[in-house]
């Protein structure tokens, strides 16, 4: 097999499936909103209107107003950027750490592998949400705490997955061939092993981004994430909880936004899986 770059391993294969198309389309919309949310929001997301507290949906306020009379649609639009950041930054960081750990521990079997695997297995026994809550409790209930918590709780599963894939690849003929012609280990890892593991990594990162949105919003809901008055969707739901009895409309828009964003990442992940990994197609 010729040397591959990561890009060429992704470029091959057939037409775009429906989940892939829907996922990419939704994500493009979310990306656009997170870039120009403040510009397209009909109201200032922090502007209070004391004459329209908890107003139900109307022509002026499509999704109604919250307990301080703020326009919910505007808050959801402006909050998109926060959630996208909190989903993507940890996934990127966890991706780097998980790839490094997985590659090293999968390729260099032995003592190092046993230590990494043992540690990862231990962390996997702590439920992800509980681990995230504990980390936020230590680092702090803010965006930084969230990012640290989601990063750390995403690394174990990713490292384990990549390690497994690398161990499979290590047995491939082209890897032994590369070693036998005197290619350095680092070069084999970067030129042969990593590109062939890239699709698995991409699929998992996309699904992890969906998980990150769920964890971030749950922590926000619990009051352990981004703090009000920032228009973070989970925090909006946490505050809205108290007003379900009198104004159930306050919980509708933020929940739909979370579900759509998670759906987008899930679709992207499933679509990528169908495309690159026909064996796993269900």
């Amino acid at each position, binding site marked *: 097999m010729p040397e591959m770059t990561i890009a060429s391993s992704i470029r091959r294969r057939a037409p775009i499936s429906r989940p892939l198309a829907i996922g990419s389309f939704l994500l493009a919309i979310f990306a656009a909103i997170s870039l120009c949310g403040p510009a397209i929001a009909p109201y200032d997301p922090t502007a209070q209107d004391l004459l329209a507290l908890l107003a139900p949906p109307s022509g002026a306020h499509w999704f109604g107003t919250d307990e301080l009379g703020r326009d919910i649609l505007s808050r959801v639009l402006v909050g998109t950027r926060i959630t996208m950041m909190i989903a993507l930054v940890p996934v990127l960081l966890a991706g780097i750490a998980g790839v490094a750990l997985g590659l090293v521990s999968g390729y260099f079997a032995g003592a190092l592998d046993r230590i990494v695997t*043992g540690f990862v*297995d*231990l*962390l*996997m*026994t*702590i*439920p*992800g*949400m*509980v681990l*995230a*809550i*504990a980390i936020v*409790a*230590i680092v702090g209930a803010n965006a930084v705490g969230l990012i640290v918590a989601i990063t750390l709780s995403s690394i174990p599963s990713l490292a384990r997955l990549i390690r497994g894939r690398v161990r499979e690849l290590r047995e491939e003929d082209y890897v032994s061939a590369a070693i036998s012609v005197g290619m350095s280990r680092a070069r084999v890892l970067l030129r042969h092993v990593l590109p062939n593991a890239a699709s698995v990594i991409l699929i998992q990162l996309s699904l992890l981004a*969906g998980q990150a949105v*769920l964890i971030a*919003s*749950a922590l926000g*809901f*619990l009051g*352990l994430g981004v703090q009000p008055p920032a228009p973070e969707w*989970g925090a909006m*739901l946490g505050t*809205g*909880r108290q007003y*379900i*009895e009198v104004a*159930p409309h306050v*919980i509708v828009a*933020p*929940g739909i936004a*979370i*579900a*759509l964003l*998670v*759906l987008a990442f*899930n*679709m992207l992940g499933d679509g990528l899986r169908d495309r690159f990994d026909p064996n796993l197609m*269900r």
Partner: protein
Amino acid sequence: MPRGLLARLAMIPLIVFGVVTILFLIFKAVPGDEATMVAGATATQAEIDNVRVQLGLDRPLMAQYLGHVAGLAHGDFGYSTTFRGNPLPYILARLPATLLLTASAIALTILVGIPAGVGAASLQNRWPDLAISGVVVAFLAVPNFWLGMMLIAVFSVGLHWLPSFGLHGPASLVMPTLALAARLIAIIARLTRGLVIEEMRKDYVRTARAKGLSMRQALWRHVLRNALIPAITAIGLEAGYLLGGSVVIERLFAWPGIGDLLLNAIGNRDYTLVQGITVLFVLGFLLINMIVDFLFVLVNPRLRHA
């Protein structure tokens, strides 16, 4: 009992020991003086020093660690500021509510998720299959706590059918169970569908059909036994989601379990209690997986004499 199962049983104390060590190190790294926190904001320096000696916080880290592990082994979880002493009895008092919630979520998953997956597989690409797949995609995207809030809005606020908080009788179990189990139902239904379809393509199904069995008979007599084993195992693997999700669901429904207690402990910066509850969550995770492994051997004759 096969050796593999015994070996995994023997691993549990080791794993718990490892987790206890990691948690100890993490929480020792938390900034702030423990003795000051325990003594309270109004304490004098002498009182703080007194607390430090009493709790053994003046000892070297290694001695504290050994004391901590020895204490845990004897059921002493340390000094909790919330309960002014060993929190274990209070944690145990809260445990049944959490067990009830997670057990009923698992039961609902088995009762709904597996039949949905089998149904979708046997009506592949017809409308019931597409409908089930649609629900699966939706359940995987919806946050569990939001689903819970929507249920409250409809069934408590709107229709007055179900209580929106607390644990008072079977009716109060309905919405928390639904909210917690939805994601797991989706995962298991999707997996079961795939497993059944895969199994239907195998040679023994063709043989059974050649012998004159109908598709339905082949499904019930042969396919399900083989397809359901991995589906049951997957429930064990998702136990982490179930336990973590219960924390959020318990808070939403004011459910008197250990997840709710964990959030209170974090609010009060009671790290002894946080560590104790986390260890119990890990134990719960390991036990659920043990039970699943045991069932796995029980229903799979190929492993019984291994």
